[in-house]
């Protein structure tokens, strides 16, 4: 079980690797598509990498609810 800060940092690493997002830009309030410019195909990559990193299963129907980094952090914190 990781803290919210640790999960955010882990997501920032993934976002940098997959979509070239600067880690400094990643915060819980940020929207993946609106603020961080992550397109739908890259979001799939982020989800798969997050599943591996945090040992959690993120169902496809859940992905559409993950609008912001904070949404993803909450889901991972609750389910990992």
């Amino acid at each position, binding site marked *: 079980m990781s803290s919210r800060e640790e999960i955010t940092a882990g997501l920032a690493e993934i976002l940098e690797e997959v*979509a*070239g997002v600067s880690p400094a830009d990643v915060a819980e309030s940020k929207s993946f598509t609106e603020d961080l410019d992550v397109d739908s*195909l*890259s979001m*799939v*990559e982020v989800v*798969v990498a997050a599943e591996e990193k945090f040992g959690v299963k993120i169902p496809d129907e859940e992905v559409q609810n993950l609008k912001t980094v904070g949404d993803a952090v909450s889901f991972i914190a609750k389910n990992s």
Partner: protein
Amino acid sequence: MNRPDVVVTGLGATTPLGGDVASTWDAMLAGKSGVSALTQEWAAQLPVRIAAQLMVDPSEVIDRIKLRRLDRSEATALIAAQEAWADSGLAGSGLDTERLAVSVGSGIGGAQTLLFQDDILEASGPRRVSPHTVPMLMPNGPAAFVGLELQAKAGVHSVASACATGAEAISLGLDIIRSGRADVVVAGGTEAVIHPLPIAGFASMRAMSTRNDDPEHASRPWDKGRDGFVLGEGAGIVVLERADHAIARGARIYARLAGAGITSDGYDIVQPHPEGAGFVRAVRKALADAGLTGTDIVHVNAHATSTPTGDMAEIAGLRAAIGEHPVLTATKSMTGHLLGASGALESIATILAIRDSVVPPTINLDDPEEGLLDVAMFKPRPLDIPAALNNSFGFGGHNVALIFVRNS
């Protein structure tokens, strides 16, 4: 019918000899070989361990995030297209993008992506397969990415005719402009399949040179010691433009694409017709299309891949179609065989030969076949070139002849 002239106003390439047109052309005139040993671990088990690999890796030119969504053949197409586009002066010229088309093909397509993602599927399961897989492996991918980059809206086309692809893509560009469907076509070919499976496949056909201990001398068209082609990778792209459109904007014009001839052999899926019958018909069609005769053609950039049967069949065909007078070259002796990109890269060499009045050399021709025509051996040959021919053939029996002339 009033048919518009079509001219070449931009060139772009990334090849085993250089990361752009200028460095590639300089290396060609210097007679350099782009062939080297494959030192990758996977190559150790292969019967063929040499190839003509890119001089400048795409990762040096395209940023990491963009590159991870591109098959290597798409990256090379994009690099060459960007150079050609900048060279044409059309960037920022106010060209109506609804009058801009793309015709870029590949002989094999995104095979590296297909094979790499299959490795992931086998090792880690379907969920790990990249969501970028399909746009990376689809055969229209290179054309589509080039079209997207340039915002081309008059159609994006991707012909596939094996090793004639690059030339056929250029001939399609000619047709598009002549038929009035676009004013400008970005056209050419791309290929990047230096990977164990394609190499093993070609090697199993006994089509490739196994001169593993002497890479620089492995590609030797028309030499008695030739033992097959050397696989190369890269892309060549030209900007074709309606002549009056180019003149109106004061564009620099390299040459005019005067004619094209396309035929199919109807003979064998991989063997060339022994007398080059289909090729002879292609050259005659190109001459008729250009309004020229065989005597007008003073230089030929031959397909000549360094295979035992193909090289001399082409000579027989050239003798029948245009005679014994032209000065030939086989630039594959230096670049290796770029498959679907070769016809485009060799079109660029033909265009620059016209511009600079020089035939680039054929290297490694230590022991020429009897009955060979006049070849610029080892050193470039100064030659006034009002009109030149570029030949391409492909598995499947494809023959494409393109005629470029000095613009007057």
